[in-house]
C-alpha cells in the first residue's frame, strides 16, 4: 500500500547515488530507503529533515505535504 508520494528517488539519482550508498550516508538500512522511495514507509520528522539536509533542499520539495 502506498502511503506517501515523494521525490527521493529522483533526488538520489540526480546525485548519482545508489540506495546502499544513500542508506550508509543517512545511517539507515537499504530496506528503509526502498520503503520510503516506494511510499510504503513515511519517515519521521527527524529522518525527513536529515534527508532534506543531505540533499541541501527543503523537506517539502522531497516529500509531498
Amino acid at each position, binding site marked *: 500500500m502506498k502511503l506517501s508520494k515523494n521525490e527521493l528517488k529522483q533526488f538520489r539519482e540526480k546525485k548519482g547515488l545508489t540506495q546502499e550508498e544513500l542508506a550508509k550516508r543517512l*545511517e*539507515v*538500512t537499504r*530496506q*528503509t530507503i526502498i*520503503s520510503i522511495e516506494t511510499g*510504503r514507509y513515511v*519517515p*519521521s520528522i527527524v*529522518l525527513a529533515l536529515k534527508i532534506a539536509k543531505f540533499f541541501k533542499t527543503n523537506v517539502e520539495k522531497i516529500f509531498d505535504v
Partner: protein
Amino acid sequence: MNSEKRFKIKILTTLLFVFLGVTLNVFNIGLNETFNFSTVGNYLIYIGFIGLIVSFLTKKKNSKKIVDERMIQIAFEASRWTIVFFVIISFALIIFDAIMPITMEYKYFLSYLVCTVILFHLGAYMVLLKKK
C-alpha cells in the same frame, strides 16, 4: 536508549542475578528443588551466566549492525500483533481445556506457551520487515 547504555543495564542485571544466587546459597535460602536445579541460588547463577554470555555475543554480533527508526517501529507493531495473538491463543486454550482437559505439567505448559509467543513475535517481525 543507546546500545552502550542498554548493554551496561544487561550486564548489571545479569551480575545482580549471580550475586543474588550466591547470596541465597550462602544464607541457605531456597534449598528446595526448583525446576530440576538443586537450589534457587544455583538457578539464579545459571540464568546470570547465560545472560552474560548472550549479552557479550549479541554485542559482538551487532557492533556493526544498523538499527533504524523503521525497524524499531516494526518491532513495536510486531509486539502489538503478539499481544493480540496471546489473547486469542489464551481464549482458544480455555475452550480447548473445557473440551479436552490439558493434563500436561504446568512448567512444561508454560515453557511451550512462552516459546510459542516468542516464535510468533519473531515471525511477525520478519513478515512485517519484508512487507513494510
